[in-house]
């Protein structure tokens, strides 16, 4: 008598299963290449202000340690501290000196304070300023910032631009 053998599925109770990670490694390799491309070698990091649309330029100079001033259509800031309001592409009359319409009082006071407090730092000593400004602002508004910075003893102005289009 031939006995038919019953089919028994071969299941090991203590088996470990291997996860297929080939596709994940694939994805990570692509990400790694992309991130290596955007890797920044600049010595300082500039956080772009969301309100500012920077102009594009062909300049290839990396920014260096300086005092960061940002001028948008609504405000004037040092680092992230707001100093003065901007309305209709101009400063409010109370922020300007009555005799000299190019002189921004809060900016001068702040720059003067930094000059006195951090006079041992090389960027303050040399008077370096990094200016980010919105590309639609007229030169007259920018000139007020430049004029005040120059009066406060910061003659080296660096304009931040995006890498050319």
């Amino acid at each position, binding site marked *: 008598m031939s006995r038919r053998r019953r089919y028994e599925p071969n299941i090991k109770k203590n088996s470990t299963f291997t996860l297929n990670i080939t596709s994940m490694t694939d994805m990570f390799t692509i990400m790694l290449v992309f991130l290596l491309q*955007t890797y920044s070698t600049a010595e300082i990091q500039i956080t772009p202000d969301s309100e500012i649309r920077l*102009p594009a330029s062909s300049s290839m100079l990396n920014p260096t340690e300086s005092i960061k001033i940002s001028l948008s259509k609504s405000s004037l800031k040092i680092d992230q501290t707001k100093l003065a309001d901007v309305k209709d592409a101009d400063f409010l009359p109370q922020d300007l000196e009555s005799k000299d319409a190019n002189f921004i009082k809060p900016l001068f006071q702040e720059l003067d304070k930094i000059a006195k407090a951090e006079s041992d730092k090389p960027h303050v000593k040399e008077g370096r300023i990094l200016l980010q400004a*919105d590309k639609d602002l007229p030169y007259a508004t920018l000139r007020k910032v*430049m004029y005040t910075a120059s009066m406060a003893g910061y003659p080296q102005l660096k304009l931040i631009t995006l890498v050319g289009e």
Partner: protein
Amino acid sequence: MRRTKKIKVNHNSEFELDLAPLLAVMVKLVPVLLVSSAFVQMMVIESELPQVVNEAIQRQEQQPTVTNVAVEVVAKEGFHIVITEKGKDVVETVPLKDGAFDYATLHQKLVAVKKAHPDVFKIELSPDGAVPYNDVVKVMDEARQARDTNTKFPVYDTKQGKNVETNYMFPEIVFANMMEG
């Protein structure tokens, strides 16, 4: 006769590569690179501000430049290139083209100016108050470098003691009308 045993070799067998350590390295590398990557690449244009008037005059006395190149940007007219040489002013005008600034002509004229005066690197920029910042940056771009890579200007290198060629035209920018009221 005894038969020799044949060893079966399966040539089509697949083996699995252990990717786990590679993945472990990548998982660590990705956050490191994410932190240090700049998604918006930013550069700077260097410029100088005439500090206190006295100091500027002093500097001018120390280094009496024979030739001075100034670019005036007027929103309603266009560009005026003023070349001051031996006390005489030569003005060249680049008018607006279809209501917009004519950058191509400005560039050509600046290349011609640089060819005539290769020892001048400084340009004095005087934009009108109504000129948008974007246009000021564009003018600086036109003045900085010659677009045509074949156009070279001789520069005397003091270290090597000979003339070196460069395509930089006017990399030093001074905002000249800053102190005017």
